[in-house]
């Protein structure tokens, strides 16, 4: 088990390295270096540009030097928690994003939990009552859930909420709770706001999970051990829940791996539509204003979180499934 975790961790570190190169490449992509546009911006607003400040910045980021030198300077800062400076907000990047990243994590985590809570009973029902009305309904709902783009679903939800209840969905907190400490009323306030994005984010994943769970469970239910259990007179719910469901759950855990990237992607766009204080809208804004260190840091951190999430799901899977723990790979 330890060997497995170590192997996976090494693989993760390599992936993180690759991720950081990609993120840095994106920082570098826009034509011209950002200092020139920074200086242009400053002079446009009539600010004095102190040549020493410029010289300092040039040194700090290694501008004008080869790619790998710039990368080395950037990444050594990142490792120490210094993600560079946002030119638009004139503040360190880290200060700007950590709160928003927390919100992102919160919403995405809730979405994962909701996905499982919804997909598990429906998936089991659809497999046990195969070809029943409920099964067909679940299948149809699943297909629609997969085909409706996240942001379109969010738009419709917003529209319906406005027409039916006269409320505008959006944000994660009411103004009075925006900067308050966590307390019961604040949690309640959060939940009244968060249900919409969580619902939107969870749909497509839920649909996929139901499909996988149903297929796996159908395979398991045919196996002789289920027949044996039934023949021994176990109550039906025990026959199903005790063994086949546990086996069919494995893929559910492993899905976190491919679900997370989709979830993070989805949350970026849903957050923009619903105007959530998460990393998504800030990423979009920083990209349109070419605030590249901010954008790069957000892309890097979102990807890093995804990679870590995948690692956790790998380890969880190995914990519950000895075939993977002791397997060849």
């Amino acid at each position, binding site marked *: 088990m330890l060997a497995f975790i170590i192997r996976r961790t090494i693989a993760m570190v390599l992936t993180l390295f690759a991720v950081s190169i990609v993120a840095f490449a994106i920082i570098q992509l826009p034509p011209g270096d950002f200092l020139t546009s920074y200086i242009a911006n400053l002079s446009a607003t009539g600010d004095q540009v102190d040549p020493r400040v410029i010289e300092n910045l040039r040194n700090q980021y290694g501008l004008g030097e080869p790619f790998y030198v710039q990368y080395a300077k950037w990444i050594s800062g990142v490792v120490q928690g210094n993600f560079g400076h946002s030119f638009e907000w004139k503040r360190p990047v880290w200060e700007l994003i950590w709160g928003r990243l927390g919100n992102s994590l919160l919403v995405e985590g809730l979405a994962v939990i909701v996905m499982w809570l919804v997909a598990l009973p429906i998936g089991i029902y659809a497999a046990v009552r195969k070809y029943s009305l409920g099964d067909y309904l679940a299948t149809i709902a699943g297909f629609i859930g997969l085909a409706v783009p996240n942001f379109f679903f969010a738009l419709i939800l917003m529209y319906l909420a406005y027409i039916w209840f006269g409320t505008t969905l959006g944000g994660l907190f009411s103004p009075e709770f925006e900067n308050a400490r966590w307390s019961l009323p604040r949690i309640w306030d959060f939940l009244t706001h968060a249900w919409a994005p969580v619902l939107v984010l969870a749909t497509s994943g839920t649909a996929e999970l139901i499909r996988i769970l149903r297929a796996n469970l159908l395979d398991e239910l045919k196996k002789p051990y289920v027949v044996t259990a039934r023949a021994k007179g176990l109550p039906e719910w025990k026959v199903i829940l005790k063994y086949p469901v546990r086996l069919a759950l494995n893929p559910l855990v492993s899905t976190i791996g491919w679900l997370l990237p989709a979830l993070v*992607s989805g949350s970026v766009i849903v957050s923009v539509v619903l105007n959530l204080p998460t990393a998504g809208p800030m990423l979009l804004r920083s990209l349109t204003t070419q605030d590249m260190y901010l*954008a790069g840091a957000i892309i890097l951190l979102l990807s890093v979180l995804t990679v870590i999430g995948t690692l956790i799901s790998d380890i969880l899977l190995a914990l519950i499934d000895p075939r993977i723990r002791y397997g060849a790979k």
Partner: protein
Amino acid sequence: MALDTQVQNMSSLDSPAASPVRPARESQFGLMWRRFRQHKLAVVSLWVVGFFYLVALLAEFLAPMDPSDYSARYTYAPPQGLHFVSQSEDGGWEFGPFVYGYKTEIDPVALRRTFVIDETVKLPVRFFAQSEPYLLAGVIPMSIKLLDVENPRDPFYILGADRLGRDLLSRLIHGTRISLSIGLAGVTMSLFFGIVIGGFAGFYGGWFDSAVMRTVEFIRSMPTIPLWLGLAAAMPKDWSALQTYFAITIILSLIGWTELARVVRGRFLSLRTEDFVTAAQLDGASDWRIVTRHMVPSFTSHIIAAATLAIPGMILAETALSFLGLGLQAPIVSWGTLLQDAQNIRTLATAPWLLAPGVCVVVVILALNFFGDGLRDAADPHGR
């Protein structure tokens, strides 16, 4: 018994003149088609997909107006619909395509001018009406449109108008062309990379294979939207419409090739150990010949199915990028740029018909998915 008939068959093969019954043969695609037809949903989806691509092809003919024609007099005019039968005031029936006119009302709360359908005014509509000359699909000169109001000064907004009084239906039809073609173009490019890279990896294996597979895994473990956004934001703002279009295609296929490469590699791996490939190798056929003559024909259908299933992802991605304002830019009309107008709740509340492009997205994605599923099942006519 079975052996007997077999022997008989063999003898009949030896002397074809002796047997009057010629063995029936069906081509690979004949078998596939027969199997595909059993999948009712897939056949319906094929019609839907075909319909949308036809709309994309005939955009100029079908769209009643130019997608960029604006009219300040009819901002956010609601959908008129298209009517064929109505009862006039004296109780008689009136036939013929027509739309209702508008009357303006002042919203007492917002003090804003709003349009209401006025059922007393009927504006006749003509099929195959004369129009300004145009080039269909940029090639065929024509001067007939499918639909138009008889009096060109009358408003004609079957699906309503947008913020600038542009006809949503016309924009939707032109957007169909862009959105669907970008899906095809993106998949074509992904397919090219996927076949070349996946093919090499699958055929030669070894370190190249593992390098490719690690890369694919890596790309697939990244959240795509932030990556796409980052790449799209790097596009220079002064690029022309065509340049952005191709840049977006390339950006989409940078990630899109991975899935197809995996499929191609998988097929190569499973075919490489097949007897007929070994036989060809022993016969001294070159690698190129083995790949193109023996392997590719046996998995073309799989690749087509996989490519079809990849189109929805491309369309969704383009829509999402353009919706966020980092994909295609304003003068280009696509479903994504159209939905961009519907981004805030105030607009949605006054003009919910602006969500129509989203409905098109959902329908096309569903149809392409069912169609692709049907193709995938049919791709292996001998299986199951």
